[in-house]
């Protein structure tokens, strides 16, 4: 097992950052810790690195208890959100730092260090900048160098704390794909923290959704996205429409509109419910194909690139509905603001409880 976290708890004055978290990460796995800001995911990462100490619990890295080791003895690579490069040192010296501070006996020879740094910089495609200073590089380039620096010490695990969040959208996407490719090549056990569900879905082998210091759900991106266990996970993993209503006698009522309750909620007593639909799972058409379809009017059109966002209000339905349809469909149906359409709610998820957004 690459990383084993056992019952980690961490309290700061006034709140509990981590509440009894247990998590296993297999060797060579790439895991995303996903959650809103302040949910404790960064604290968890820092605890694994030894930069914070847990109040209780154990951290086992490659079958060795490292709970109380200082960061420098943990052999963990850490990549910071804001790069944290040494700006008085060149790119070469930054990457070589971890090797040069080794005790004399373990330190590789000068030429071995040179080779290793060159190899790593090639790996992150930054070999051309070996003599530059960090201030001469762009954000994306700095983060690559930071990654090479973290990898230089052959870490048992690589920890990345929101590594791409300081970069602009385009570079972020590029680096994301590149990191996935890099991980497929070098297979170092990695955990990265993010609040960006797209990043987690695209990059990770496994996603761990964290909220308020607890793990809500973990699984492959597919599992977590298709079968969210609760309203929080569903909501956090993408855009949603939420309709508050009541569940009663096997039916969910949303004002005058009723739909069948899912099987597991068929026999519950009457209680409040939230009905979730993802915008892209809402069907829009010009003709009524099903009697449950709603008749609606387009209130607003948003051009979002390949997707078109529609804001709809429907007869006999008190909530406004956000839908996303492909651009092609939008053009084919010749939609515009004020047009009448029929709306079908596909793949509805119903949760009960007091969840609030």
């Amino acid at each position, binding site marked *: 097992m690459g990383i084993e976290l056992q019952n980690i708890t961490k309290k700061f004055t006034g709140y509990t950052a981590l509440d009894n978290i247990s998590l296993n990460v297999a060797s060579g796995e790439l895991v995303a810790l996903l959650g809103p800001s302040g949910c404790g995911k960064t604290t968890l990462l820092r605890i694994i*690195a030894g930069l914070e100490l847990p109040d209780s619990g154990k951290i086992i890295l490659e079958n060795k208890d490292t709970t109380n080791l200082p*960061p*420098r*003895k943990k052999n963990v690579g850490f990549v910071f959100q804001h790069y944290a490069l040494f700006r*008085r040192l060149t790119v070469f010296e930054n990457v070589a730092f971890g090797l040069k*501070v080794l005790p004399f006996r373990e330190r590789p020879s000068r030429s071995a260090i040179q080779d290793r740094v060159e190899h790593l910089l090639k790996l992150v495609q930054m070999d051309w900048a070996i003599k530059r200073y960090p201030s001469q590089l762009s954000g994306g380039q700095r983060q690559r160098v930071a990654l090479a*620096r*973290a990898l230089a010490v052959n870490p048992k695990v690589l920890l990345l704390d929101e590594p791409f969040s300081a970069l602009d959208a385009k570079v972020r996407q590029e680096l994301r794909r590149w990191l996935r490719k890099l991980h497929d090549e070098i297979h170092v056990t990695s955990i990265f923290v993010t609040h960006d569900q797209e990043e987690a879905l695209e990059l990770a082998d496994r996603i761990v959704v964290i909220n308020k210091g607890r793990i809500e759900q973990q699984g492959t991106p597919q599992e977590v996205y298709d079968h969210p266990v609760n309203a929080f996970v569903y909501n956090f993993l993408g855009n949603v429409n939420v309709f508050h209503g009541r569940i009663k006698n096997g039916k969910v009522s949303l004002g005058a509109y009723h739909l069948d309750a899912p099987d597991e909620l068929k026999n519950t007593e009457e209680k409040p419910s939230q009905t979730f639909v993802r915008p892209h799972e809402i069907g829009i058409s010009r003709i009524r194909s099903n009697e449950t379809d709603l008749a609606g009017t387009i209130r607003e059109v948003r051009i979002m690139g390949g997707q078109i966002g529609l804001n709809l209000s429907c007869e006999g339905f008190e909530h406004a509905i956000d839908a996303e349809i492909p651009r092609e469909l939008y053009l084919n149906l010749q939609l515009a603001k004020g047009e009448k359409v029929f709306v079908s709610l596909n793949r509805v998820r119903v949760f009960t409880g007091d969840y609030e957004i």
Partner: protein
Amino acid sequence: MEFFQRKRRNILPGFGLSMGYTVFYLSAIVIVPLSMIFFNTIPMGWEPFLHAVTAPRVLASYRLSFSTALFAAVFDAIVGLLTAWVLVRYRFPGKQFLDALVDLPFALPTAVAGICFATLYSPVGWLGQTLIKYNIEIINSPTGIVVALIFIGFPFVVRTIQPVLEEVEHEIEEAAQCLGATRWQTFRKILLPHLFPALLTGSTLAFARGIGEYGSVIFIAGNLPMKTEIAPLMIMSKLDQFDYAGASAVALVLLLISFSMLLLLNAVQEWQQKEYR
């Protein structure tokens, strides 16, 4: 080639105007008064000038002034760095009080400091009577001068390092630790290079101040010829004997040496800063 190029639009308008002001004020405040030393010396002629500035007592005073100022500056650099570190990195009760104490040498008339030291270290003073048992003499010795100059120069170092230290991101140190660096390695390889320019500026200021310091030193130094006479004192004693030209001559040499040392240190700093920008 154009010397005064304007690189980009500035929020404050008028390079010509502001440069003019700068030159004018520097002239009025620094250059013109100091040039008087120069003009006072000229009528002397070369022979008497050389004679005045190479007298053994004068040479000894230069040596003493520069060496004690240097010692004090180096000491201040170390202790000042430590103090700045404590003030920036830790939170403790009485921090404000301690922070205010640092500035006291700036505000205090230096003669007051000199009298305090003289009382404290005199053979019957609190510290003096203990030290004398171990044959350590502070009063009437170069050591005493260094002690006084350390006091005078101390705030310069603390106040130049403090803001730079405050800016150092904590993540930098964490990154170094994660890469396996010990605390000492983190300090020596990462923090110290970062602080070095500020440290150099601070100790240069302390050094420059130390060369010119008069008030606090004369009370503690004893002013023994060839042993504990500092250069500013030589100037004063020449003035007392109405030897204005001689005083100017000594002052001129002091001025030239100080200025070239400051220039050199500035150049070192410039060179230090250049690469990372």
